[in-house]
């Protein structure tokens, strides 16, 4: 049979000699490998106390951005939702009324914006599709929940808080 790689090793099927039948050298060899690992650098971290640094391209929980004056950037153009391969994003748009100019940057805005984190695969396509710099994937995880309801993120969960505004967790 043709091998797929040249890394295959033939199995040694010769009968064991006396030294091998004693097993002690083999145990010793195994112990050396075990004790060598005590002095090696640990690849794990003890998580809640120590936190591993995120890669600069890490794609985590989404945020909805505001502009310099604190107005929402999102105009509910729907490009993130159409780009989303998991169909996790839904939204409903509304027209800005006179007097709401300090809340929304453009005449149309997302009155409802929802990401289903159970569906989201964190591919970042929404961020790439957004023409208004409104959606970004941040360097955090979606926190764990006991129930599915906790993974439906509405606008109040996604929108970055205004300076001085307390975000209710």
């Amino acid at each position, binding site marked *: 049979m043709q091998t797929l790689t040249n890394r295959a090793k033939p199995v040694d099927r010769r009968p064991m000699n006396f030294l091998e039948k004693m097993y002690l050298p083999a145990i010793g060899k195994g112990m050396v490998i075990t004790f060598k690992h005590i002095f090696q650098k640990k690849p794990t971290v003890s998580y809640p106390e120590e936190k591993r640094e995120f890669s600069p391209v890490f794609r985590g929980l989404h945020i909805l951005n505001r502009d310099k004056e604190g107005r929402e950037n999102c105009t509910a153009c729907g490009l993130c939702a159409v780009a989303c391969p998991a*169909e996790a994003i839904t939204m409903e748009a509304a027209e800005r009324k006179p007097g709401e100019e300090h809340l929304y940057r453009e005449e*149309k805005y997302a009155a409802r914006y929802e990401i289903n984190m159970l569906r989201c695969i964190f591919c970042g396509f929404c961020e790439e599709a957004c023409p208004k710099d409104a959606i970004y994937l941040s360097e955090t995880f979606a926190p764990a929940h006991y129930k599915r*309801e906790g993974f439906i993120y509405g606008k109040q969960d996604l929108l970055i808080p205004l300076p001085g505004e307390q975000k209710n967790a």
Partner: protein
Amino acid sequence: MAEEQKLFKVKIDGITVEVAPGTTILNAARQIGGDIVPPAMCYYSKLQGSGGKCRTCLVKVSKGSEADPRPMPKLVASCRTTVMDGMEVANITSPEVLEARKGVVEFLLLNHPLDCPVCDQAGECHLQDLGYEHGAEATRYEFKRRTFDKVDLGDKIQLHMTRCILCYRCVFTADQVAGNREHGVLGRGEHAEISTYLSKNLSSPFIGNVIDVCPVGALTDKTFRFKNRVWFLKPVNAHRDCDNPKCCGKTVLWMRGDEVFRVTARKDKYGEVEDFICDTCRFDKKEAKDWVIEGPRKIERQSVISANHYVGVNKPKDTLVEVLDGRQPKLLMDIHSISQVNRPNIDLSQIEGPAHSDDFNK
């Protein structure tokens, strides 16, 4: 019996076609079809006198005719130039034409606000397609674009003059289809704008067709304004018996679930309506029970409207209920119990105009 007409032989991009005398180069190209059809923003085959305004359909005539084989000195607008026998035309095979078209697109976009994320026409906008296919990727324009306030043409049509490219299609529609022209173009040159004559309401039952003929988002349906994006809606062919004898009643419903968000006329592959429809069909019949639905409308594969529409899906049979002895599987979460969008008790399509913040806080 009319005597047999002599057909003219025209060669467009190397493809020969025989057309009747008096046909324009654009229509001759449309008889061939395919990539060689010049794009048109202002020409509309259903409207008399349209064309010649936007210059996107410029072509090069490399041989005038059999009798006079000299080439035409300049690029000509193919929607206005009629064919001659033995004429040879270069459209996409001529780099000169492609270069000129790029310039025309740049001119059309000079004063265009590029507010596509807000505009309701996005996804079915001819200027978007034109810019994508023929335009440059960036503008060189550094000056202030002209701005206008948005205007209500009647209570159902919204005019965004900033987006207008002055194709005059709506003016011809109001003249020829709606019958009474109450709106037109005021001013000249840079100051030209579509306007109604001093607060006159547009009362014709066919005036809604200006929305369909508008190649950009300048005239949009106010009953659909900001309700949804066209690519989230499912277009279906539908018809109804309309009381208006001039209305064909054949439309496209843009649906989401059972909600009818928008009604438009059926458009062919050049974006021209097949038959004009009346305003009752367009604005007032926003329920599925008003219509006889014929089936999903065929949308070009390249169009964003066909994104995420799964057609021809073969769903495997769900054997779960059988295995569970007829018990339904336990639903772990009803999405409506937590989700704020697509609430079953509020139909956005039934709201008169665009939704506002108070519609959502109910």
